[in-house]
Structures are given as structure tokens and as C-alpha cells.
């Protein structure tokens, strides 16, 4: 049995799931669940909804263009049975899925590196802004004064051991 893709969210439809809608001009729309079917009836655009594959690919959140996607494609040309070819494709399927997964993980990591920087900067900003929530302003002032004192002490020249010997 063929595993079709949902027209709306492009997830796989397993047998016994979802509903197919046939328009008057005989075009077929397959939906994986009632959520997708209901959104289709509301005439919503899957490219504008964040949870669909179409949006995620368009917004650059997932790997969109890659050679590993070209294996899984609907081909209308009937292929003559060939044992060697079948074995080769079975092997290829496993290898290509592994490669695809690695590439997707790499893509995710590179995308998250930017996000990590952004979150760190924003957290830093919020900490500087709302420091009074962490420590009371009075104690902060005290700390500042103490720091100033310490700086002063550090700035003063300290007599070395040789100098002290000379003085004696």
C-alpha cells in the first residue's frame, strides 16, 4: 500500500487515516487528519501557517534543497523488475536516509548557533536592566563604594622588599 503525503502539512498518511477530497475537476486532495481538512475548508494558505512543512521550508527553518530528497519521488514510468537493481535501491535507501539525517542535523546546528548568540545577548541586556530585582539598590551602592576603595588601594605604589632593605 502506498503511503501518501498530506496536501496541507505534507506528513505521511498511513492506511486508514485521514480523508481524501475530490474536487469537481477531479483533482485529489489528501489530508492526514481533521485539522488539515478543516484548515483547507477555511481556505487557509499552508505557506502562512507555522506548523506546516511548506512554511518551515520557505522560512529556511529546515533543509529545503538537497540531492537526498530526489530519491523519494513519484515516478509514473513503470520499471521492469530487476533483482540487482532492486537490491541496489534497497541498499541506497538506507544509506541515503542516514546521509540526509546527518545533513539535517548539521543544518539545525548551524541555525541554532545564531540563535544562541541572540539569546545570550538578550539575557545580558535584561540582566543589566533589571539588576534591582536580583540585588537591592542600597547594597549595590555599598558594593560600588567598596570596589572604588579597593581600586584606590591597588593603585597606590607598594614598596618592594629591596626598597625596604635600603630604607633600613
Amino acid at each position, binding site marked *: 500500500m502506498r503511503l501518501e503525503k498530506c496536501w496541507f502539512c505534507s506528513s505521511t498518511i498511513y*492506511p*486508514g*487515516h*485521514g*480523508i*481524501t*477530497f*475530490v*474536487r*469537481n*475537476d*477531479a483533482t*485529489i486532495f489528501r489530508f492526514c487528519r481533521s485539522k488539515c481538512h478543516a484548515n483547507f475548508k477555511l481556505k487557509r494558505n499552508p505557506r502562512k501557517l507555522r506548523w506546516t512543512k511548506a512554511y518551515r521550508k520557505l522560512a529556511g527553518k529546515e533543509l529545503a534543497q538537497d540531492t537526498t530528497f530526489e530519491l523519494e519521488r513519484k515516478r509514473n514510468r513503470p520499471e521492469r523488475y530487476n533483482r540487482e537493481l532492486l537490491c541496489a535501491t534497497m541498499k541506497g535507501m538506507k544509506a541515503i536516509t542516514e546521509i540526509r539525517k546527518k545533513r539535517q542535523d548539521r543544518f539545525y546546528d548551524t541555525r541554532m548557533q545564531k540563535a544562541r548568540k541572540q539569546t545570550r545577548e538578550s539575557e545580558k541586556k535584561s540582566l543589566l536592566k533589571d539588576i534591582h530585582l536580583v540585588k537591592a539598590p542600597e547594597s549595590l551602592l555599598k558594593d560600588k563604594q567598596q570596589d572604588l576603595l579597593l581600586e584606590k588601594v591597588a593603585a597606590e605604589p607598594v614598596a618592594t622588599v629591596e626598597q625596604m632593605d635600603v630604607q633600613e
Partner: protein
Amino acid sequence: MICRGTYLNISDNSGAKIVKCIGCNDGINVGDIITVTIKKTQKGKLNSKSVQKAVVVTTTKKLKRKDGSQYRFDTNTCVCVDSKLSIIGNRVMGATTYELRMYKLIKILSLTKICI
């Protein structure tokens, strides 16, 4: 749901365009035969106000199959047939379903482009 008084579209070129169901059993599904009167016509053999038999081809109500799949169509449509259940027109537009094979209406299936 198709019952007495339901208006249906015609998807062949027999001459009828819109028909009204005047005789049917309860729970009409795809492949069932109903009697209709013709309300609107287009180019073809049949005239308006005549009484005809017709085979239901698609329904807006969900069509459930034993393998668990469900199908829904845009409109209720039927195809005009004579008393021997042979099709009057010579072309069928739009989609039809494989359930017609069960009722031995293979002529309709052979004329359609897309069977679902």
C-alpha cells in the same frame, strides 16, 4: 444525503443539467439508482420535465471503504440511464468511483477519465 426532493448535477452529455430526485430508497449511496425529473437542460437528447432513471456517481456525504479510507466529493452528481441501465450520453465528465463496478455499471467507468 440524497432523498426525495434533492437536486443533483448531471455529469454526462445526455442533455440534462440539473435534476430533482423523486423516487429513491433510504440511505442512497454511490452506485444506487434513483428516478429523477429534469429541471434544467443543456444540449443533448433529453428534454426538461421528463422522468428518467439515474445512477448516483458521487456524493458529498463521506464514502467509506472497507480498507478504512474515506472520500468526500464537491457535489452530488448522477448519470442518466434508460430502463436497461445503459447510459444515454456518450461522455462522462469529472470523477467517478470504483464502487460502480460492484453494480456492474462498467460502461460508465470506461467513459470516465479518472476513477477514484
